[in-house]
């Protein structure tokens, strides 16, 4: 039998998970204290409720105990997410997955019995790191939970344009800190080869050539956009 899910908290993360699960055909229940958020899901999911998820009796009444997987994503409110996790475990929900906002929050959630703790911002970072093994990304450095530096082959759309024309800063919100370029040469033997040139801190008028490797600093989500180009 297909698994059933309850998503508690319809912020950006919760709502995208609920939508994805519903689209895959799973039985999905959504809960949020904000009526407007819930209304949006009324037609998409199997059940939707406006209620305070820290109310144990209310959760019991709507049958949360019989659901296979609960996903708790109540934003920055750490106390609430801990309390809801505790109630769900006590009600006997088989698998409770909780979004944590930081390490300490994650540790507490694990202590009180959360089956899986996820750090969505970090998951994005991991995905990006995984794509390091793709042919496009050559290197990856995590600078902070939000920012990183990637080395990526210049996307086709950038070739022949200056940094200013591409509008990397304005359109993509990232900064190119270096361009690695292969310059073709003729060796003493008369056969072609190339040497590598690195332009550090390229200017707005520097043009991107075919084969350039760009070192870019930015937020994960912005870097992901570049990677998808």
């Amino acid at each position, binding site marked *: 039998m297909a698994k059933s899910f309850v998503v508690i908290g319809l912020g950006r993360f919760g709502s995208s998970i609920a939508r994805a699960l519903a689209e895959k055909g799973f039985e999905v229940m959504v809960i949020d204290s904000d009526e407007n958020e819930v209304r949006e899901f009324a037609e998409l999911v199997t059940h939707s409720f406006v209620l305070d998820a820290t109310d144990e009796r209310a959760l019991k009444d709507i049958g949360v105990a019989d659901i296979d997987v609960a996903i708790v994503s109540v934003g920055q409110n750490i106390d609430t997410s801990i309390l809801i996790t505790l109630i769900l475990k006590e009600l006997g929900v088989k698998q409770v997955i909780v979004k944590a906002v930081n390490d300490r929050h994650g540790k507490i959630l694990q202590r009180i019995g959360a089956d899986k703790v996820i750090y969505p911002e970090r998951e994005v970072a991991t995905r990006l790191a995984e794509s390091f093994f793709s042919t496009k990304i050559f290197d990856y450095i995590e600078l902070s939970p939000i920012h990183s530096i990637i080395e990526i*082959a210049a996307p086709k759309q950038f070739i022949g344009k200056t940094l200013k024309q591409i509008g990397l800063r304005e359109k993509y919100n990232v900064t190119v800190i270096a361009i690695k370029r292969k310059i*073709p040469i003729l*060796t003493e033997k008369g056969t*072609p080869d*190339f040497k590598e040139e690195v332009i550090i801190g390229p200017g707005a008028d520097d043009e991107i050539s*075919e*084969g350039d490797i760009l070192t870019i600093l930015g937020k994960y989500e912005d870097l992901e956009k570049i990677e998808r180009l």
Partner: protein
Amino acid sequence: MPKKPITTQDYIELGQFYLLNQKYSEAIKQFKSALRLQPDAKVYFQLGLAYEATNQIPQAQEVYRKALQLDPQLKEAAEHLERISK
């Protein structure tokens, strides 16, 4: 006057011209045409350069290996293959 047939050497020279002018996609086409007429280690190596320049690493590795199969002494192919396989 009858047209002179295009020789392997013509394709190679044209490929080198495009390679040196950073027109890598064109260079790839010319080197491939040359190789269709006559497989040659040096031409495989130059095709590898064009692939490497455009960050097509698996393709570059493949043709550097072919170059080395035909001429195990081709030092530059071995060097490039080692560098991109790190």
